[in-house]
């Protein structure tokens, strides 16, 4: 593994990098309420963003964010499953109204309150089905501190450019652990440009250009804006289920599928001649990196895939797995959620899993499965 330059090394946590990158990308407001293990994000958000609002509860959080978003601001919040669950209906609203926002979901051990200070990767399938109709919502998963920076900025970009809520998926160990980190590896964050509809002719709140409707804030007075959480036509007027409104609902799905194609983020470390492939996302990717290195040092040939765009799920992940004789997917749950996302209940014979409950998966556990 390449040793990085040591001139710029600091002791830092992932939460700090995430909020700073979001601010630089154009986030305007942090709407928060306390929940472990997302409290550092709340603290940094309150220090960094132009506007900080302490919400009294999770539903209010999402509603305030939606209102702010309607005025052209980009709001951010951070939560964990118990809070996220309460936000669900409102996230559906923001999805339907097409309001940009970033929701950082810090996974912890469930069910319910579970263990607030124990990490987990247990929420992926919830995310896949969280929009009624199972329409996809963009989910980006951080694998390391550079992702806390880069993907946070990308989340802001996707939210604005696709007019949608985006989930930045992470977990307790990724945002609360302090690590030595080389700041010289951080790329410059370019602020996301917010384009507003600027034509004289009639504006329709949900008339798409390349799947995404042009945006106008409700604070301007040139054109009428209509935002609607109920089934609606291009104007934003409630409709039961006529052709135009159904086309609009279909577009919500197509928008995410089509426009996310330019946001497929992953890293693939291919070893020539390798017939084995390790796949891990989020917190487990650090163990997968170590496992890959140790296996190679032992003379085993193995490739490593770290998916970052989880939803919508690039078909490429599946295709790559099918090209390998043995695939090991490692994730911190006991029901192989990423595997189910890819294959449903019909796991191909060449795919094996390493799971865990209540503790991080170690490199040794992955190695054992790869060489089994």
């Amino acid at each position: 593994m390449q040793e990085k330059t040591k001139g710029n090394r600091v002791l830092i946590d992932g939460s700090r990098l995430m909020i700073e990158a979001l601010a630089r990308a154009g986030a305007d407001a942090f709407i928060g309420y306390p929940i472990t293990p997302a409290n550092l994000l709340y603290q940094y958000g309150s220090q960094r963003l132009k506007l900080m609002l302490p919400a009294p509860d999770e539903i209010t959080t999402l509603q305030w964010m939606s209102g702010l978003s309607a005025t052209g601001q980009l709001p951010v919040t951070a939560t964990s499953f118990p809070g996220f669950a309460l936000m669900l209906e409102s996230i559906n609203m923001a999805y339907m109204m097409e309001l940009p926002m970033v929701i950082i979901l810090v996974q912890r051990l469930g069910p319910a309150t579970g263990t607030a200070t124990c990490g987990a990767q247990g929420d992926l399938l919830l995310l896949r089905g969280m929009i009624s109709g199972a329409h996809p919502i963009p989910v980006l998963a951080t694998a390391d501190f550079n992702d806390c920076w880069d993907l946070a900025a990308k989340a802001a970009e996707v939210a604005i450019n696709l007019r949608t809520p985006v989930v930045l998926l992470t977990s307790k160990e990724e945002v609360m652990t302090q690590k030595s980190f080389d700041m010289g590896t951080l790329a410059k964050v370019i602020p996301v440009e917010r384009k507003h509809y600027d034509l004289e002719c009639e504006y329709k709140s949900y008339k798409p250009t390349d799947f995404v409707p042009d945006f106008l804030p409700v604070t301007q007075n040139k054109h009428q804006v209509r935002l609607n959480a109920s089934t609606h036509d291009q104007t934003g007027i409630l409709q039961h289920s006529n052709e135009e409104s159904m086309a609009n609902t279909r577009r919500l799905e197509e928008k995410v599928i089509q426009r996310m194609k330019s946001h497929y983020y992953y890293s693939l470390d291919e070893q020539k001649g390798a017939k084995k492939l390790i796949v891990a996302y989020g917190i487990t990717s650090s163990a997968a990196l170590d496992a890959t290195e140790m296996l190679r040092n032992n003379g085993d040939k193995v490739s490593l895939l770290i998916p970052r765009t989880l939803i919508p799920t690039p078909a490429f992940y599946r295709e790559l797995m099918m090209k390998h004789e043995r695939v090991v997917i490692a994730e911190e749950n006991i029901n192989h959620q990423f595997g189910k996302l890819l294959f449903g209940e019909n796991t191909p014979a060449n795919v094996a899993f390493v799971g865990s409950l209540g503790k991080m998966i170690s490199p040794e556990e992955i190695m054992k499965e790869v060489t089994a």
Partner: protein
Amino acid sequence: MNIPFLKTDALPFCKGCGHDLIAKNTTRALEKLGFNPLDVIMVTDIGCHGIIDKCLNTHTVHGLHGRSSALGAGITFGMEEPGKKVIVFIGDGGSTIGLQHLMEASRLNLNMTVVVHDNFLYGMTGGQTSGLTPHGFNTTTSRDGNPFFGYDICALAHTAGASYISRVMGIGDISDKLAVAFSTKGFSLVEVLEICPSYGMKLNPRRKLSEIAESSGKEMGEWLNQRPPFSPQQGRKSENLLEKVDPIAPKFKSYLKKTTSIILSGSAGEGVQLAANVLCKAAMRSGLSITQKGSYPVTVGVGFSTAEVNLSPREIHFHGIAVPDMVVVTSADGLAHNKQRIAKMQGGFLFIDESLEVPPTGAEVICHDFRGMGARNASIFSVFFLALKTGIISTESLFKTIEEEGLSEKLPVAKIKEALVA
């Protein structure tokens, strides 16, 4: 050219529904106040009143059941331009589904008006009892009369701090009364009483609106609070989060060859996390990579306090510690919390305060008087002791860290130096 607020006078409500009166008086009030339709943002809730959207020339936002006052609140937070008006239409049902949102908007005294269409029941869903249904009022879910008493939504908003609250009978011209609310600085709420002809009238024949209001204690009136309205957090400092994170340059040497995991375990209030932080920063000054995390009970001031640290000459990816290479125990709480992991150790070192009973372990045990330095200093002293005994980093790098991090006053540097010589 004056654009009217309403596209049509034929509103989509049942004949005789009070919603019609509220909608027309709202637009009349706004016209009287000189608003242009596109300076007004109408946020509507779920319920019959919400289908007014399509008839309006204002901006329209149609949200979820009960949540529209929070959605409207969000819009007010983002409104920098004066001369805009956020109005929320909500029903009696929605106002208790989202009661918290109404209280919050009142407490923060946000610049908006909520018009509660109180017809004593959920109309759109079939005439069910709501939180504002008066005692004894018949609904489709309480045909023998509501056994419960309804909220006084005006009193609640008043207690919560709204600038202006009024209760109005939904009869005749109420536009002036609405205009007072619309021109209020801060939060205003108007509860308009009405009867839903389709359910309320049918289920409560011969009852009059005024009589229902009187018998249920829904008194007409105005209530005021003299409080400043919400103002945006002007001049708030936005702090670059990376500015105060100082780089730590390597100045010392470490001969550490492989990743080494260390657990410091003691009691809350005894400086365990700080000691771990000094250890990590000294390791970075020695050119090592580190990871650090803490664990302690939710009541942070009592019980154990454990810090998990990895040091490595290379970049660290996986930072979990199943079986540590070294454990330092400075208190009984710390021992109890890490007994299991200590038992699993097949080698490495266990540093333990001499007052404690040595637990079963395969590690080499080194007992020392850490607490003799005082409970608060036991942990930082143990870090120096560990450095001295194992040589993973130099004690100089630890002293330098204390100096450069501005901790010389806080930590007993001279006493530690003395003890190390001994």
